[in-house]
């Protein structure tokens, strides 16, 4: 079963990561879901595919009442990000989902109605979750054409979707990056293939370098913390991306 781990806790404001399912079938990519809560509201980032829904629901239940979930955040439209939407709506039919305006008529193929979605404009937006202000940061073309990240200035956490993701081998399942050089080898191929636009990458690096980030939290792989955050941004800024490799 997946496990929930607290990343930040101050008063009624919390970040918890739901990660690492030892029972996950190997044909499914591993995902990290982040539960952000403030006062009576809570939001789940990239709630995952429908196949991992039971594991996410059970892990989330350990730290919160799933019925109290008020919002979802879909960084983009991929099935591993949001195909569980219909099941979450079974839990709470009045859930609202923040996502790029670009995907508001595509994601309903996974479930939901027009009233489920809060379309986010290209420039992002700021909104209140409980008593906490959160910022949706544009990350278009990284990798999806309508791609968003979520920043919490109080917790200093950036949820970065597929940016920073790493496909970790089975013997390297730590929650936080502990050896950057070793870890980044598992991130290289992913970023070279999935991230196609240097222009978008440069804009993102500039934008997030201006943010005060303590934890950079991707949807796959380990979390970057402290100096590893800027180390990652520098690495990504230099990486040759949009590379199609022939299978070796």
């Amino acid at each position, binding site marked *: 079963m997946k496990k929930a781990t607290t990343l930040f806790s101050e008063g009624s404001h919390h970040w918890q990561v739901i990660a690492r399912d030892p029972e996950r079938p190997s044909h499914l990519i591993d995902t990290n879901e982040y539960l952000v809560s403030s006062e009576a509201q809570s939001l789940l980032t990239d709630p995952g595919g*429908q196949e991992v*829904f039971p594991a996410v*629901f*059970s892990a989330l239940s350990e730290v919160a009442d799933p*019925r109290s979930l008020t919002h979802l955040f879909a960084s983009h439209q991929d099935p591993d990000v949001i195909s569980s939407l*219909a099941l979450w709506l079974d839990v709470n039919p009045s859930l609202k989902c923040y996502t790029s305006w670009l995907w508001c008529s595509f994601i309903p193929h996974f479930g939901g109605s027009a009233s489920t979605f809060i379309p986010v404009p290209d420039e992002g937006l700021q909104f209140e979750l409980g008593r906490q202000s959160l910022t949706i940061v544009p990350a278009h073309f990284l990798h999806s054409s309508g791609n968003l990240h979520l920043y919490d200035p109080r917790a200093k956490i950036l949820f970065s979707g597929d940016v920073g993701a790493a496909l970790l081998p089975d013997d390297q399942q730590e929650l936080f990056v502990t050896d950057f050089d070793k870890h980044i080898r598992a991130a290289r191929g992913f970023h070279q293939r999935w991230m196609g636009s240097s222009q978008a990458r440069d804009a993102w690096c500039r934008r997030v370098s201006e943010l005060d980030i303590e934890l950079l939290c991707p949807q796959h792989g380990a979390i970057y913390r402290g100096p590893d955050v800027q180390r990652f941004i520098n690495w990504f800024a230099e990486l040759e991306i949009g590379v199609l490799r022939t299978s070796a």
Partner: protein
Amino acid sequence: MQHTEIDTANFGRVAALNEAAKELMARSHHVNRLALDAMVQSKATGANLRGFDEVSSQIRHWSRDLHGELERLRALSRELVVQVSHASKEARLLSLLRRATATCSENAPRCDFSLKEAAQVERLERLRKLWRTMAVALSDLDQLGLMAAVLSRSAMIEASSGTSEQRAQLGRVSEAFYQNSESVISVLKAALKAVA
């Protein structure tokens, strides 16, 4: 056409049970600490309150039993989530297949999804069985709740047999036992109601 729909309130019921299990787990830890404290206090007073020590020791056993039952309940709850999710997905799929078939012209080849429907009926039956197992597990827990009430009353009686200082100290602990056992009973009643 067989009944293959699933009541989405299933998720709400599982969530309610999980919340009850968390509350009971916290009570179980608290009671265990109280029982330990009581034994230490009883020793510290140098009293010969063997009866009180015995009851405290039984309360610790009770706390361990409750913990074990709650682990069983959590495992059942996880299994319920898996089954409800699966049944919910299949119900949606079947509903779409039926809609697709209904919109086909008369001459179009009919798809036969009777096997899928039968599997869903079986799945829903399994789910009902699982809920019944859950109800039995909760009844067992309910017995433990009643046992807690009895034990806490015994602790109060035993505590009242010491000196005034002992009565004051142990009385407070016994009262806390009693309040916790009452809470356990009320949480269990709410959980049983959620499952019913």
